[in-house]
């Protein structure tokens, strides 16, 4: 459904004439346009429509004899509202007295104290006296609602916010209210712990101290902390966050509501993985390999040795850049590799380079959809991605679109999606056959025969036809949310062409409210690409003077001895790259491996000669680019821990030692250089970005984006998907919890994934596998073990394993066919 058009109505609030958009709730309109606060407890616009559970918001509306709930009455033309008459005052005092009847006097020991809406409302609108002398209700407290959240039922005021969140926003349906009347209490079904990817949001929603974060419990009071706004860089969704800092330590992460990015929510990784900043395992001093072991050394020695080793390797150096790298670090690293070392072998995309022309076409500003488009489009097609794992917060946005704005959700993926049950139609294809599926869908939309393409994709031809029909009927505004894996692997260029054809078929170029939205593999993949941290592009996606090796070829060249040194900037090829086997060989052969890392991940631990401590995201400054082209600013929120130094400065110093000083004195100087050198960023500045960022594709300068060939492309027929004859197809995925930060955070350690083998019920039955038992997955002599997980909507003939985990990763298996048996 397209965005609602705003129609203004005028009404009178406390004698003042105000204008507000029709349909807005009175409580919101009064605060936003009338500068009058109507106290609320249960209402929060971001949870969805009001339920009027607490009656705190009573106001007088002329012409209606009874008081009205300001949170549930929409503004209308000519409405006359009073919020401070004696009747309203009496009602507010009575409601507060009633709410406080069962509320304990816990403020001094309650974690919410000082930032508690109940305290504020009682102070601002309460009568100050209670006539209730009978005993209050009692519950055991505090109880663990989950390993992350503590619940104190005595403090609960039964506002339903948490329950509504669980049922209507996250749609995990775990929280419920039990009993009736004064006995009502919040719980989960059957008392199971509330474990969900977005559970932490209820802590921020609860208007009292009934739900508190266990990692933050009792750490600080609001007056002990400072809020520092920045951006979460743990995944491509780049949610806007605010760090609560006390004594240079991050104590918690809160959302910094941004309608264009996160809609006010955070995932549990973003909310709790800050703990990894302050753990002992984190590398906070330079390390050097000495006698086979990494030992701490001084910065001077580490930098000098690194410069010596690099100048020795010279042009025989390759560099892999991870997604958490900022634009500034990316620019300085390309300077180091290209200018100072004379090498072109630098890549920030795992799994091989994409043709530059196609990159330009895919990133063209006219083709980009924004995050809010997901919520208002006529239809959203998920293509080869799983939002909850790849960019979690988009999962909530899609659910909101479907629930409140009638978005038609269509899913085409190989792995079953958490959104399947909300989708108008879901189709499955064989792992790695996204290209064939996109081609089939494109053909079906164009009215051409698609059955053979569907077959090549290992998909059902009826599914393809159904999706095409739905897309055609839906309306003009269509967003295709696609995963980078569609353009990875050996047929990546064909994948990109098929996708561009599909977009062309739907007429998405230049369409308002529709377009393509990529979920890249790394947080700042888009920014790094636009800065030319690629083997085949220069800054601003310009032509590279000399084309270098891509990540795959860097691995091969290292293994063959054509390259001798490797720089790993926030990247661990054993976790990020598709094939472990190749990279084991490559790293074993490399004579120099210089890593910038925060944790001793496998490649760093086993192969690095020098390890520089990486800054955490709370210590970094710089800019990153959101997948929807929003340039966002990271701000330093705490002092760097231990001996850690600014990485941009380190990269600049290394280049200077190698005889090519980039002349970067401050990080903002590098940012300014970027805004100057990337033509389509021209005119941006850190001040302009401010706290909310700017989508460059919406600015005038976007016109200078390099031109690209336009669709339709002729596609060569995709190879047929391997047919499962006894063996199973291997698919891999990266779980939301697969990250070193999650592993290092004590509070999240219980979520860090062990290998699980997702298999369809039919295959499980055929192989005699039951849920939760240990199974072995083998191919060409390699094997990994994992717990079997039977998923009802998994496609028959395919098994899914996790990649990017330190042990038993799917990357150890060659595939494409594997044998699964009970261990």
């Amino acid at each position: 459904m397209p965005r609602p058009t705003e129609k203004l109505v005028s009404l009178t609030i406390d004698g003042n004439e105000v204008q507000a958009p029709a349909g807005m709730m009175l409580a919101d309109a009064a605060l936003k346009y009338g500068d009058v606060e109507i106290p609320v407890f249960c209402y929060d616009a971001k949870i969805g429509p009001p339920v009027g559970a607490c009656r705190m918001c009573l106001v007088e509306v002329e012409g209606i004899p009874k008081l009205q709930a300001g949170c549930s009455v929409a503004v209308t033309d000519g409405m006359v509202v009073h919020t401070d008459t004696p009747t309203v005052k009496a009602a507010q005092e009575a409601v507060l007295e009633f709410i406080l009847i069962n509320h304990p006097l816990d403020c001094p020991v309650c974690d919410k104290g000082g930032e508690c809406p109940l305290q504020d409302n009682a102070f601002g609108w309460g009568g100050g006296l209670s006539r209730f002398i009978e005993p209050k209700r009692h519950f055991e407290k505090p109880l663990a609602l989950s390993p992350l959240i503590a619940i104190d039922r005595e403090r609960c005021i039964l506002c339903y916010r948490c329950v509504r969140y669980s049922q209507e926003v996250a749609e995990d349906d775990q929280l419920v209210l039990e009993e009736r009347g004064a006995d009502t209490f919040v719980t989960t079904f059957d008392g199971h712990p509330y474990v969900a990817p977005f559970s932490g949001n209820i802590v921020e929603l609860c208007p009292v101290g009934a739900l508190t974060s266990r990692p933050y419990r009792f750490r600080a009071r609001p007056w002990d902390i400072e809020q520092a706004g920045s951006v979460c860089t743990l995944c491509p969704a780049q949610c806007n966050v605010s760090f609560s800092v006390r004594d240079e330590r991050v104590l918690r992460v809160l959302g910094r509501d941004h309608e264009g990015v996160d809609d006010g929510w955070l995932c549990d990784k973003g909310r709790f993985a800050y703990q990894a900043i302050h753990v002992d395992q984190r590398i906070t001093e330079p390390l050097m390999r000495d006698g086979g072991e990494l030992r701490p050394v001084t910065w001077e020695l580490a930098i000098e040795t690194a410069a010596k080793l690099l100048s020795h390797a010279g042009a025989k150096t390759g560099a892999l850049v991870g997604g958490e790298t900022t634009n500034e670090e990316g620019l300085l690293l390309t300077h180091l590799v290209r200018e100072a070392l004379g090498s072109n072998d630098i890549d920030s995309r795992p799994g091989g380079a994409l043709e530059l022309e196609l990159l330009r076409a895919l990133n063209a500003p006219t083709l980009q959809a924004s995050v809010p488009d997901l919520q208002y489009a006529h239809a959203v097609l998920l293509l080869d991605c799983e939002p909850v794992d790849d960019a979690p917060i988009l999962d909530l946005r899609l659910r909101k679109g479907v629930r409140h704005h009638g978005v038609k959700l269509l899913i085409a993926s190989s792995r079953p999606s958490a959104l399947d049950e909300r989708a108008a139609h879901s189709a499955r294809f064989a792992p790695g056959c996204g290209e064939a599926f996109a081609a089939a869908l494109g053909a079906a939309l164009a009215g051409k025969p698609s059955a053979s393409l569907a077959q090549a994709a290992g998909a059902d031809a009826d599914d393809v036809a159904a999706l095409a029909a739905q897309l055609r009927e839906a309306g003009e505004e269509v967003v295709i949310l696609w995963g980078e894996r569609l353009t990875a692997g050996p047929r990546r260029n064909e994948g990109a062409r098929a996708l561009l054809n599909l977009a062309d078929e739907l007429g998405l170029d230049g369409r308002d409210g529709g377009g393509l939205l990529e979920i890249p593999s790394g947080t700042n993949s888009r920014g790094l690409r636009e800065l030319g941290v690629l083997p085949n592009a220069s800054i601003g996606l310009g032509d590279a003077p000399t084309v270098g090796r891509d990540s795959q070829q860097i691995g091969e060249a290292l293994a063959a001895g054509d390259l001798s040194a490797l720089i790993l900037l926030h990247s661990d090829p054993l976790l990020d790259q598709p094939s472990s086997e190749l990279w084991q060989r490559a790293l074993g052969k490399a004579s120099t491996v210089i890593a910038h890392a925060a944790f001793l991940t496998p490649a760093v631990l086993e192969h690095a000669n020098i390890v520089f401590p990486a800054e955490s995201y709370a210590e970094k400054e710089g800019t990153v680019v959101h997948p929807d082209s929003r340039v966002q600013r990271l701000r330093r929120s705490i002092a760097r821990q231990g001996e850690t130094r600014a990485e941009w400065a380190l990269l600049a110093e290394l280049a200077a030692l190698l005889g090519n000083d980039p002349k970067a004195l401050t990080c903002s100087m590098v940012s300014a250089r970027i805004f100057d050198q990337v033509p389509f960023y021209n005119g941006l500045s850190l001040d302009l970005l401010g706290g909310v960022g700017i989508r460059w594709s919406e600015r005038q300068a976007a016109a200078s984006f390099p031109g690209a060939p336009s669709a339709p492309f002729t596609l060569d027929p995709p190879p047929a998907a391997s047919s499962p004859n006894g063996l199973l197809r291997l698919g891999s995925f990266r779980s939301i919890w697969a990250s070193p930060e999650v592993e290092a955070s004590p509070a999240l350690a219980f979520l860090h994934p062990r290998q699980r083998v997702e298999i369809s019920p039919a295959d499980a039955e055929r192989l005699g596998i039951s849920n939760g038992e240990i199974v072995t997955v083998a191919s060409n002599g390699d094997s990994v073990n994992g717990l079997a997980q039977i998923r009802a909507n998994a496609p028959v003939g395919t098994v899914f394993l996790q990649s990017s985990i330190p042990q038993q990763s799917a990357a150890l298996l060659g595939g494409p066919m594997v044998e699964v048996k009970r261990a």
Partner: protein
Amino acid sequence: MAWDPEKDVIEVVRGPQKAGGAGGLYRAFGETLRGLKTTFGQLRMGVDTIQYPEQKIPVYPRFRGRHQLHRFEDSGLEKCVGCSLCAAACPADCIRVVAAENTPEHRVSAGERYAAVYEINLSRCIFCGYCEIACPFDAITMGHEYELSDANRSDLIFTKEMLLAEPIERTPLRAEGE
């Protein structure tokens, strides 16, 4: 307005310029004797010097000296629950509280939380007593001790243990009506 030097001239009133005669005698001895009368008049009032530090002035009950943290007499648990309200009230920002959670094995205070760190920087404290007023549990009170000089600033940061301990020497308290 321009400064007018004439206006600031101080007029000095002098005695008769010519010395000698009875007036001169009076000026030489009379005024001196008048002064001495006051001096000797004080003699019968006795000595009022207090021999500090051997001797101390007793303080009033509401005298605001160095703080004290308290325990429950029966259970021995600390009254302070680490709520940080005193820190919020303190105008000099000299109280630092870091709270932690009580466990059944390690119970420090009666509530859910306790003060793992409780420090007052007495070199910054202005002895206003706001902390005492803010405390919901009467856990902190202003004591009577006022001898707080030290050779080292950092020794004036009093820790929880120091604030919980009884002062080594009690400051004498002024009796009722004294």
